[in-house]
């Protein structure tokens, strides 16, 4: 049991972080505005969670300009995808045990 629990990474504990990672698993990349819309959170809240994920090397940030407007896109790194995949598996196993 301890083994499984250790796979439930602390990094993914918050709802916002789970949301960010699930979106990035199925989308190649997404910009801040669209991310905010999907998750229904404030700018500051989203930015701090993104920072945390970036610090752990789970996501990558790409800044570019569309015309004159700055546009920041987020991409899940290979490490991030793997870590999130394991987190999902662990969640599923935990649920499987209870039933």
């Amino acid at each position: 049991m301890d083994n499984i629990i250790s796979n439930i990474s602390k990094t993914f504990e918050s709802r916002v972080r789970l949301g960010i990672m699930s979106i990035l698993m199925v989308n190649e990349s997404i910009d801040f505005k669209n991310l905010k819309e999907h998750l229904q959170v404030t700018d500051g809240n989203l930015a701090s969670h993104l920072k945390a994920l970036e610090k752990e090397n789970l996501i990558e940030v790409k800044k570019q300009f569309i015309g004159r407007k700055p546009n920041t896109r987020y991409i899940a790194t290979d490490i991030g995808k793997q870590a999130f995949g394991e987190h999902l598996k662990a969640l599923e196993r935990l649920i499987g045990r209870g039933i």
Partner: protein
Amino acid sequence: MTKQENHLDQLTEIREMMARSSKFISLSGFSGIWVGSVALAGMAVIFYYFPDYFYMRYMHNSIAYPDYMLCGSELLAFLRFVVVDASLVLFFAVAGAIIFTYNKSRKQGKSLWDDTAKRFMVSLMVPLAAGGLFVLISFYHGLYVIAGPLTLIFYGLALFNAGRYSLIEIRYLGLLEIALGLLAAIFVGYTAIFWGIGFGILHIVYGVVMYLKYDR
């Protein structure tokens, strides 16, 4: 809440977020009903002005008997009428679909033109534009009979393709349109009927199903 439920909740939320962020789900059922009705109205206008065409000549399933087909200036006038009529139908259908979809996406708290909508439109427009140009080229070569079935086939392919980025029902609708187009290509004389079913009735049925399943 027990830990168990908590984990289950998380998984459900993750799955929902994956679907919501990768699929264009704001297409409303009303837009289907609207598009179908506009198409049927367009057909009715053609039927009103060219009743002969439906019954006497065109309905006769044969291109081997030229005396049953319209020819010369009569054919030209008819084709011109159909092209104008179809363009108007297309305009009103698309405009209505956009308005209904805009309303729905606003209710969902999403913006109309997000990444999912872009992906959906690109995968829809590529086969559709190719088909549209191909139909024009078939006109250029004087192959009028095949133009009607082709529109159904290419529209079906476009829906089937774009359906990957939307709800599964769009893909089914695409398959049905393709089947109708192929049937129309065999029974060319009945293209008008297949058009009515494909662009009119199928859209309305699709719209009602979507409304009952998702919008209510």
